[in-house]
Structures are given as structure tokens and as C-alpha cells.
């Protein structure tokens, strides 16, 4: 079973790049693009053809990333989440990633379904959904910065945190 951590780390990277890459795409590209497209009435292509596909890969990549990360932690899962000293660095990263997964499935995706018309919602509900989904997405972008710091420095390269 020595091969499990290597495979888990590989899948964790592949899915994590997909997840966070799409998160950055939403925040740095799609949101500003939608603002500009709304001004000239051309947002339909993005909301109809791009956003649903991007959200599909985004939310399932988040799940795969978390599961592969849990597999990679293995017996260190509980010590990491309880911030035991040897695993505290990766534990902070794991907690941040877990909060981000929660945001994806509990705040971003249900509200995006209203915004994109996948579930019915009034204009008022859509406006509220836009704000909640936007702030949850921006929160995840903010959290990704310390999350990646602690992921990079918490498990195998601990010099920066002094372990």
C-alpha cells in the first residue's frame, strides 16, 4: 500500500488545479467579463454555455480534491484536523480547504442554480443569490491564499513553519 500516498497526492494536485483554476477563472475572468457583456447584451453565451460547464467541473473537482487530500493524510487525518503540533501546518490548510468545499456546495452552487435558471427563482431571489454566490466565491479566493501556503509548507516542506 506504499503507492497510495503518491497516487493520492497526484490526484489531489490534478483535481486541486482544476478546482482552484476554475475558481480563479470565475473571479478574475468571468465576473468582470459578465459585467462588460451585460453592458452590450452579450452575456447569454457565457451564462448559457460556459458557466454551467465550468461549475460542473468546479464543484466535482472540489469533492475529488478533498477526498484525495483525506486519502493522502491517511492516519494523519485526525492529528491534522485536531492541530496536533507535528501536523498543525497541514491541519490549518486542511481546515481552510474544508471550509472552501462547504462554501462550494452550500453557498455557491445552490445560489448559482437560481442565477442560471436551473431552479426557478424570483428576480429578488436571484439578486440575493448573486450577492451570496459572489461573496462566497470571493471568500474562497481569499482563503485559497493561506490554504495554498499551508498546503505547500505543512506536510513535507516544514522549514518555513519551523518543524
Amino acid at each position, binding site marked *: 500500500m506504499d503507492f497510495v500516498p503518491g497516487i493520492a497526492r497526484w490526484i489531489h494536485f490534478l483535481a486541486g488545479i482544476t478546482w482552484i483554476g476554475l475558481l480563479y477563472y470565475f473571479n478574475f475572468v468571468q465576473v468582470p467579463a459578465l459585467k462588460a457583456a451585460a453592458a452590450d447584451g452579450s452575456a447569454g453565451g457565457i451564462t448559457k454555455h460556459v458557466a454551467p460547464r465550468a461549475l460542473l467541473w468546479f464543484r466535482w473537482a472540489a469533492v475529488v480534491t478533498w477526498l484525495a487530500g483525506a486519502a493522502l493524510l491517511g492516519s494523519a487525518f485526525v492529528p491534522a484536523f485536531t492541530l496536533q503540533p507535528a501536523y498543525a501546518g497541514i491541519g490549518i490548510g486542511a481546515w481552510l480547504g474544508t471550509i472552501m468545499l462547504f462554501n462550494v456546495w452550500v453557498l455557491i452552487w445552490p445560489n448559482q442554480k437560481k442565477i442560471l435558471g436551473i431552479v426557478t427563482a424570483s428576480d429578488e431571489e436571484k439578486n440575493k443569490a448573486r450577492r451570496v454566490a459572489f461573496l462566497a466565491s470571493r471568500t474562497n479566493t481569499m482563503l485559497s*491564499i493561506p490554504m495554498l*501556503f499551508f498546503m505547500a509548507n505543512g506536510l513535507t516542506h516544514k522549514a518555513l*513553519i519551523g518543524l
Partner: protein
Amino acid sequence: MKNPLDSILGTIISGLVLTLVLYVFLKNFVLAGV
């Protein structure tokens, strides 16, 4: 006060500040005495 998350720059700066805060928390509270 404006929400820093409304701008990309504000979001990135908030992330960097949070990184520093969590680093100080880790070094001075979780790893204190290790």
C-alpha cells in the same frame, strides 16, 4: 466601509493578511513550546 472582497486587489490583500495572521497563530499558539 467598503467590503474588500468587492475588488480583486482587496481580496488578494485580505488573503495575504489572513496568511500572516494564521502563521502567527500557528507559531505562537499551536506550536508554542514545541
